[in-house]
């Protein structure tokens, strides 16, 4: 009844499902091979994972074993919450035709009887409400007494649809708060796959498809050979220093066909590939990545600039806006991605403000700096508990929050100014701040790394070159996989130049060009300002809390659109995302829940 009501009251043109199965479908001939390969590998795993169960049943491998695993999931009180909820109902729906009635009943009771933690952040809510939506749809017309939250099936369906629709609206107009996250990507794309696959309401199914297209094109525009390049709202430190170990890489492999190796076969990724196998839902799904998005993800024939305006996660106090803008700038080439957020606290705990990610099969293929800030007030902006104990509390789950050597952090004392493959980072750390230093990450497996007599640090990995100039001195220490550069100077700055053989010919030529660049630091000690003329002759002026000026013209970050670049364009607030590749166009219209394609 709830479904019918919802459909009647939603006047939306539905072109989506037809398009999704026709001209927009993935034309990657190897997709079917990868899909089959993934299911084959996972079906032979033995862990008590919903994805292993789904794979076994789908492949007909150890069916009895799969039933035992699923049965044990239904009474295992050692797991629960939103991560459990959506994956359980998704697995149930993928396998229900093969399940015995008794097991179906157990799954139903397990879902309905457990109080599910809704969570406190975007990815939690996506998982919780997608799971609740599908469960309420699967077991309709049941009174509140049968559900953990006391609400009837129809009430649950309505509430879940309400939240999901609001999330679609926000994500398509001002962006996700947990945007561009190699770690958390799976917590958005996996529920959306399940929603697309099983939502009976065609409007909801259409919106799930729109959201999948948006998630994937958002990734594709900053993708390089399996890496989620550029800056990230949230990321685990393991994934920051070893980008190809991130969960998003599995999805890049499945849908983009890159990296050209199987992540799970590489022992170097095993400790960090959390074995979630979430991509199984993608392999089982009828969702097909539009060919245009795969082309955007893999065609690196021309370098390009891609900018975005996303949003800060919900600010609940100590700020005037609930979701201030977060400005992103990314420069993508076939050899590297250099990307940055404009700086400041845009996310608590796990922000990754800038890096250069190098195309390589080697692990630890990245270089970046950060100020490892923490404070109770920062956490208090986003969490409602008491300021004076939040730091310790967060350390329980994100074990490095107060660690002075951590590799992820937002900081109010860090700002950036990027133009193509040149990046300026300024640090202005207040006295008395905990952890008053900045750190730099340099992998030990670079082919070359040395400090030039003029102060530049030059690095080379294959045919990609990076030069960094630290305004104030620091010290190098050796760690297991990297060199750490640390400076205690409260006012500091870094100039970053990135190049490659295709742009600069040789490494020596790159060095010569960079060494000839003009660095003017006359205003640095007093005003934390810098004037820099890069190796291409572009003049960049930048002051902390001051304007960003390029060749005499001020850059207004507020001019950034939701998406802007050769492949993706969207006016912030419009709800319409235009995807372009050569003569193809795909327009995602979240207002009408439609997709239009032209060739």
């Amino acid at each position, binding site marked *: 009844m709830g479904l019918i009501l919802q459909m009647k009251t939603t006047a939306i043109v539905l072109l989506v499902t037809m398009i999704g199965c026709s001209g927009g479908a993935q034309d990657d001939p190897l997709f079917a091979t990868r899909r089959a390969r993934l299911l084959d590998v996972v079906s032979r795993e033995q862990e008590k994972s919903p994805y292993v169960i789904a794979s076994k049943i789908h492949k007909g491998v150890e069916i009895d074993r799969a039933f035992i695993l699923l049965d044990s999931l239904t009474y295992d009180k050692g*797991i629960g919450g939103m991560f459990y909820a959506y994956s359980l109902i998704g697995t149930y729906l993928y396998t229900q035709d093969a399940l015995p009635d008794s097991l179906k009943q157990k799954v139903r009771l397990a879902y309905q009887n457990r109080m599910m933690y809704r*969570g406190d952040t975007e990815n939690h809510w996506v998982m919780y409400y997608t799971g609740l939506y599908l469960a309420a749809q699967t077991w309709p017309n049941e009174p509140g007494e049968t559900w953990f939250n006391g609400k009837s099936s129809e009430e649950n369906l309505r509430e879940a649809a309400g939240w999901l629709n609001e999330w679609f609206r926000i994500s398509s107009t001002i962006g996700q708060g947990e945007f561009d996250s190699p770690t958390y990507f799976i917590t958005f794309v996996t529920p959306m796959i399940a929603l697309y696959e099983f939502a009976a309401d065609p409007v909801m199914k259409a919106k799930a498809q729109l959201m999948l297209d948006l998630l994937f094109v958002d990734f594709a525009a900053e993708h390089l050979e399996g890496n989620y390049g550029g800056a990230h709202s949230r990321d685990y430190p393991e994934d920051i220093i070893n980008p190809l170990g991130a969960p998003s890489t599995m999805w890049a492999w499945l849908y983009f066909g890159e990296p050209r190796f199987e992540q799970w076969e590489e022992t170097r990724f095993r400790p960090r590939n959390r074995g979630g196998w979430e991509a199984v839902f993608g392999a089982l799904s009828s969702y097909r990545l539009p060919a245009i998005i795969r082309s955007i993800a893999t065609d690196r024939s021309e370098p390009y600039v891609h900018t975005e305006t996303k949003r800060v996660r919900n600010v609940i106090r100590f700020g005037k806006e609930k979701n201030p803008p977060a400005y992103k700038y990314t420069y993508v080439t076939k050899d590297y991605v250099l990307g940055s957020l404009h700086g400041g606290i845009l996310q608590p705990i796990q922000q990754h403000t800038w890096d250069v990610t190098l195309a390589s099969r080697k692990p630890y293929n990245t270089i970046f700096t950060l100020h490892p800030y923490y404070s109770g007030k920062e956490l208090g902006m986003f969490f409602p508990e008491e300021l*004076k104990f939040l730091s310790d509390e967060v350390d329980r789950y994100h074990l490095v929050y107060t660690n002075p050597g951590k590799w992820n952090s937002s900081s109010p004392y860090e700002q950036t100014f990027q133009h193509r493959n040149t990046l300026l980072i300024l640090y202005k750390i207040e006295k008395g701040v905990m952890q008053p230093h900045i750190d730099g990450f340099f992998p030990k497996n670079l082919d070359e790394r040395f400090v030039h007599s003029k102060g530049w640090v030059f690095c080379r990995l294959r045919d990609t070159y990076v030069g960094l100039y630290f305004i104030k001195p620091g010290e190098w220490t050796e760690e297991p996989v990297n060199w750490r550069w640390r400076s205690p100077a409260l006012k500091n700055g870094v100039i970053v130049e990135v190049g490659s053989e295709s742009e600069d010919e040789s490494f020596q030529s790159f060095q010569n060009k960079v060494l000839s660049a003009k660095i003017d630091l006359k205003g640095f000690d007093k005003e934390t300002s810098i004037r820099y003329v890069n190796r291409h002759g572009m003049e960049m002026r930048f002051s902390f809390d001051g304007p960003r000026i390029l060749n005499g013209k001020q850059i207004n970050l507020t001019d950034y659109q939701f998406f802007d670049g050769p492949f993706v364009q969207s006016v912030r607030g419009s709800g319409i995302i235009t995807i372009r590749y050569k003569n193809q166009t795909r327009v995602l219209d979240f207002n009408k829940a439609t997709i239009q394609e032209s060739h």
Partner: protein
Amino acid sequence: MFFSIAEAQETIVMSVLNSRKHRLNVSDNPVVGVFASTNAGSTWEHRGWKEYIRTFYTEADERGVLWSACGNGVLRSADGGARWVITTGWEMTEVLKVAVDPSNSSIVYAATAYGIFKTMDDGKTWQEKHIGLPMPFTSDVVVDRSDGKRVFAATEEGVLFSNDAGESWKVAGLKKFGVRTIAQDPSNAARLWAGTQDDGIFRTTDGGVTWKSVNNGLRHKTVYTIAVHPNNSAIVYLGTHGGGVYRTNNGAKKWEQCASGLGNPDIHSLLVLKTNPNIVFAGTLNGGLFRSTDSGKTWQFNSQDEGQVWGLSSR
């Protein structure tokens, strides 16, 4: 077997937000959630769900209906905690406190990270009450015992006051202070106390018109909870961060630290039993619940070791 709260003389309800023993993403966490005691804390019984949903505060109305402020919203139980219904929708999350109108149990206010909400129909529907709120974040809400139209709220920008049952709000005072908690004197409705993030304790004796800092002897200025003696306005307890419990016997002329036996100095909840005011409970952050049987002079560990006892109430 669950009992009816209404039948008990004084039932204490404890809300354990979290615990060092709690395991994330586990469905069986008997160390968090709602606990009740009918024998002054000699024994405790877990009530309802055992999943972690961030239980901040729970109180019973005069009918014995339990209202719980949780991360998942406002939960209601009409059978003493055996079965709960989430009364709120997706719009309400991070509910930090609930306050039942003493004159009408169908009216409940909720202080949340996203503003103040109110139900007038026993939780069937909720309305946001944001007119005049300078910022949405609200950590506490108190309904004036003498007049249900008068409501106070604790915010990062002072104490807010509504004289039209939450329809509109204005700053009542302490505008520059992060107010974390408010308590009304059980014996004198015009006397209220406000605990702040960094600036100690304030008192009003004119129903919120004027506020006065009364910090003499208070060395720890982060006050997360306040409890007033049920029959003697001169006796007040403060729960501080880092300094344990403070007590005054003289209406805040002088505060004295009374932390002997407190195993954790970070206090987030306090309760003085109405039926025996010598018995005082102090809920700590990560140290569990402590009980004093001598009006706070000495404390003994009571239960929930390593638990965050975020809220205490009784009826």
